[in-house]
Structures are given as C-alpha cells and as structure tokens.
C-alpha cells in the first residue's frame, strides 16, 4: 500500500502490521463499552425498564448477525476501511463512498458523545457550581486523544486495552457487590419495575426503544478498521470481534439488571450516568467513586477508538481519490493517517460545543443503522457474486440468509423508532447523504481510477 500527498509523488509508507486479537477486542469493546455507562438507558425513557431489556435481547441478536456477517466478509477482504473496502469490491464506488461516510459520522459523533459525557461527568462530580468549565474538558479530551492517535497505533490500542479492561472489570465488581443472587437485600427489582410501570407506553414504547437499544453495541463492527494493521486478519478479526460481542452481551445484561434494580425507571431513563448513579444508590463511597472513574475511562476508551476508526475510513477515501488524495498521507515517522486525524478534530469539537448528548448519540446511531442496512444487503450480494467455494473465505457464517434478513428487519424497525421523536435528525442525516451522493456520482467520480478499485485476487463476479 502506498500513500500520496497533495501534488507530490507517492510515498512508499504503509500502516504497521503490529496488532493481535487482543487489540481487535480492545478496539471493538473499547468503542462500545461506554454504551453501558451511558446511552442505553434512554431506551427506558422511551419505553420503560422492561422495554430496555427487550431491546437489549433483540439488539444482541442484531449485533450477533452484524458480527457474523462482518467476520465472513472482512476475513476475506482484509483492507483498511473495513466495510468501505467491502462495499468497493461488492457493490460499487458510490456505495463505498457512502459507507465510509457512515463510518466517519458514526464514529465522529460517538467521539463527540464521549467527550460530552466526559465533560458532564466532571462538572457533575464538582457539584456543577460553575467553577468547572464543561467545554474545556470536552476540548481537552478530544485534542489529547487525537494527539495520541497521531503518535502511533500500537501504544494507543495498548492504552485502550488497559482502560477498557478496567471499565469492564468495574461492571463485574459492581454486579457482585450488590449481591445479585439476593433480591431485596440491595437490589429492589420487584418494587422498582412493577406490572404498572414495566411498559408505560405499551408496545409502541418498545418499538421506540430500539432507537437507544442500538447503543448497547454500536461500534463493534469497528474492529474491521484494523484489518491492515493486524498480523493475521483471517484469525484475529473474527476472534477479536466474537470475543468482543460476548463481552458486551455479558456487560449489557449485568448493567441492565443492576441499574433497573437500583433506579426508578424515570430516573434511569433520564440520567447521563446510569452506572455511576447505580453506584451512588448503593451508598457505598467506594462503588460510587469507582463507577465515576470508570465512566470517565469508558468515555476516553471509546473516543480514542472512534478517532482511530474515523481517521482510517477518511484516509481510505483519500487513498482511492474518492476525496482529495491529500488525506491519504501516512506520517513518515509514526505511520498513522495523521492528516485525516487532524482534519476530523475541529469537526468533532464544533459538534461537541453545540449538540447535547442525546442529539450527538442520535446522529451516531443513524449513521450506524444506515451502515447495518447496507451490510444486510451486502452479504446477499457477496454470496451471489462469489458463491461458497468460488473464493477462499477466512470464515463462513452459518444459517445464511437468516442473519441478513433478521438484520434488515431490525434496521427497518430502528428507522421507525428514530422517527418516533427524532424525525428532524433523521431528515437532516438523509438529506446530507443524498447531497453528498449526488456530488460524488456526478462530479467527484471523474477523479477515481476504475479498475484499480478492485484489488482482491478473485475471479470475475457472477453476473458481470
């Protein structure tokens, strides 16, 4: 792989192949685990505590389908850009351009949400008396993490692995500290989630909750961004992704059980810090402070992974000339896509200063759901154009096409759920993608090389 800079000859510098399955796990879980510390609980606001549990199960299914589908395609197409590279080889350039933008915005808005959460948590801890400036912590978190990403991927993901592991461990410690086997001692599920308030809006509330249910797991597919930097993509990507999915299912289930058993559903649905508040509700200073610190760590780990992934998707667009090739430069010393990292930083800051937490999360979720819709169609086209046996696959997912159909159906439900309450954001996002698609197809595509888009050593796809 080469990288070019604006108006200059290609630089023969590549991304470093230094990562293993543990880094893939850290990248995936690191991005997503913040969803347990904040965001999933808004599902309780939209439909009640029981609705939050129901969507946890359904979204667990959705993401299991995502992980299976993704593992098959990515273990076969191991290139930076993840789903972008998949779209380029299977659907076509315009789809690839859109998919890369889905990823950039899903991750950038997730990074924005993380930074807002980080700033809000510190302000809340300080008592919110105005002495602490929220925006300064938001800006500091984004800029410092961008700098870490600029300096190199290995140290960065080692850092992510450490803080992600600590954050996950804190959920396990909280879970066992409140004696989950003994309802009534500390946990009060039966009194807090009653037949009268379990589904306060009925089944329409359950549907509406899908909007936030996605947040339990959004971003796990980001593991594929490391495809060009892992030593063994066919092994490390499926292993890291599946292990990450199992970790998140365990963490999400524990989180729901503890939080729904300690917080009234209206409070659970409105707080920005459900796990920290659960720690406070135990009235143990140790648990309270532990959950405060790990809320910060989870936010940092997620923002860190998001900067990594968004920059790589943007870098891939520049490398293929879908965007100006200036973005495709790799840092000569640190071997990171530094121009993409720098370019996306002020955009994240601009949104972090005007959006509130649920608006930023909604933008991220919308881009994510557009991407999952693509993935459900993409796997169908992949199997049709290159049936099993026609090319070597690192992993073949079972029960095709059931996971793809299930994923597509859940995406449609989620679009409707977002429409219920956040119609303006949905409209703004689709308008944005329509405008940039028209721009790409009728103008930008003239700068794209044709045959060079297809880099895999595969036979011609069936039907062409």
């Amino acid at each position, binding site marked *: 792989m080469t990288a070019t800079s604006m108006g200059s000859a290609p630089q023969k510098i590549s991304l470093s192949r230094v990562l293993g399955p543990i880094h893939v796990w850290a990248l995936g879980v690191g991005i997503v685990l913040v969803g347990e510390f904040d965001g999933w609980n808004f599902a309780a606001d939209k439909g009640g505590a029981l609705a939050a549990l129901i969507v946890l199960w359904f979204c667990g299914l959705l993401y299991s389908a995502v992980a299976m589908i993704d593992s098959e395609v990515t273990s076969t197409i191991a290139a930076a850009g993840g789903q972008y590279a998949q779209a380029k080889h299977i659907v076509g350039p315009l*789809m690839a351009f859109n998919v890369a933008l889905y990823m950039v915005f899903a991750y950038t808005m997730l990074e924005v949400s993380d930074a807002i959460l980080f700033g809000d948590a510190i302000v809340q801890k300080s008592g919110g008396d105005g002495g602490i400036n929220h925006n300064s912590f938001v800006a500091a978190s984004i800029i410092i993490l961008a700098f870490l990403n600029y300096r190199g991927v290995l140290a960065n993901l080692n850092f992510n692995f450490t803080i992600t592991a600590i954050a996950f461990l804190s959920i396990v410690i909280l879970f066992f500290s409140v004696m989950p086997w003994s309802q009534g001692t500390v946990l009060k599920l039966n009194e807090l989630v009653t037949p009268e308030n379990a589904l306060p809006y009925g089944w329409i509330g359950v549907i*509406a909750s899908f909007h936030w249910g996605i947040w339990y797991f959004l971003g796990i597919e980001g593991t594929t961004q490391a495809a060009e930097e892992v030593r063994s993509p066919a092994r490390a990507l499926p292993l890291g992704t599946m292990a990450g999915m199992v970790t998140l299912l365990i963490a999400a289930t524990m989180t729901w059980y503890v939080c729904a058993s300690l917080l009234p559903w209206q409070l659970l649905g409105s707080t920005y810090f459900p796990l920290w508040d659960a720690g406070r509700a135990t009235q143990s200073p140790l648990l309270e402070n532990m959950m405060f610190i790990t809320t910060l760590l989870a936010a940092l780990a997620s923002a860190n992974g998001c900067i990594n992934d968004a920059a790589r998707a943007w870098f891939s667009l520049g490398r293929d000339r879908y965007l*100006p090739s200036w973005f495709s430069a790799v840092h000569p010393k640190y071997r990171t896509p530094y121009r993409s990292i720098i370019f996306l930083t002020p955009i994240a800051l601009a949104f972090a200063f005007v959006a509130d937490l649920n608006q930023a999360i909604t933008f991220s979720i919308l881009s994510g759901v557009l991407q999952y819709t693509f993935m459900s169609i993409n796997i169908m086209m992949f199997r049709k154009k290159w049936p099993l046996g026609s090319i070597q696959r690192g992993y073949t997912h079972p029960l095709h096409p059931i996971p793809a159909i299930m994923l597509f159906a859940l995406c449609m439900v989620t679009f409707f759920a977002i429409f219920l309450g956040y119609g303006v954001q949905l409209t703004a996002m689709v308008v944005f993608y329509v405008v940039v698609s028209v721009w790409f197809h009728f103008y930008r595509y003239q700068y794209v090389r044709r045959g060079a888009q297809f880099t895999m050593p595969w036979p011609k796809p069936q039907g062409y």
Partner: protein
Amino acid sequence: MAKYNPPDQPIVMQLFDIACLVAAIFLALWFPLYMGWAGISKNLEKIDNPTWDALKQNPTMVAQWEKLGFTPETAHAIIQNKWVYSIDWTQLTIMTIVLLGYFIFLFMASDREYRDVIEEKFNSK
C-alpha cells in the same frame, strides 16, 4: 475497453472539494442543531405542588430518589416529562419515500460505476 485515466486535480480544486464537504457537513448536520430545530416530541404534564404520592412513586422508589438527592419538586420534571407517540402519516410517508429513493439511487448508481470497474479490471487490454 481502454483504461480510464482520471484527470489530475490541481491543489486549488482539492481544497475546493474539501470546502464543499465541510459546507455540506455543517449546513445539513451542524446548523439544525445550532438553530435548535432538532427538538424532541415530549410533553411536560405539570402537577402543581408535587408530592411523591401525586407522582405515583412507591416507598422503594422514593427511597432511591432520595438517596440520589431528589425531592418531589426536582423529580417532577423528570417523571412528568412524557413522550407523545402520535404518528404523522404524511411525514412518515415522505420520510419513507426519501429513504427508499436514497437507497435505490445508491444501488443503481453504484452498479453503473461497478460495471466500469469490472470491465476495466477483467476485460481491458
């Protein structure tokens, strides 16, 4: 099929393209947030002089609220701020058409471009 050689893009035009993208991002996504247009459909069902009973909180719920420092007055805005799930069918229909139109355009235009890619990759001399 002859190999397609894309034109070189001058630096000024690369900067222009970057500016177009930044403008699209800020006009379509950032501006509605900045203007406060991206509201949500909730309705505050106000209760004068709220009590825990009036807010329909049982003793366990009250204990948990109080552990976190809430009073009936401060919890009132959280408890009584409720979603309004009325479906505007016209808006839903328009949204569905826009979304469908977007995906149809996306897949059709992509397929046209993909045929160029495959033709050049596998059939060019």
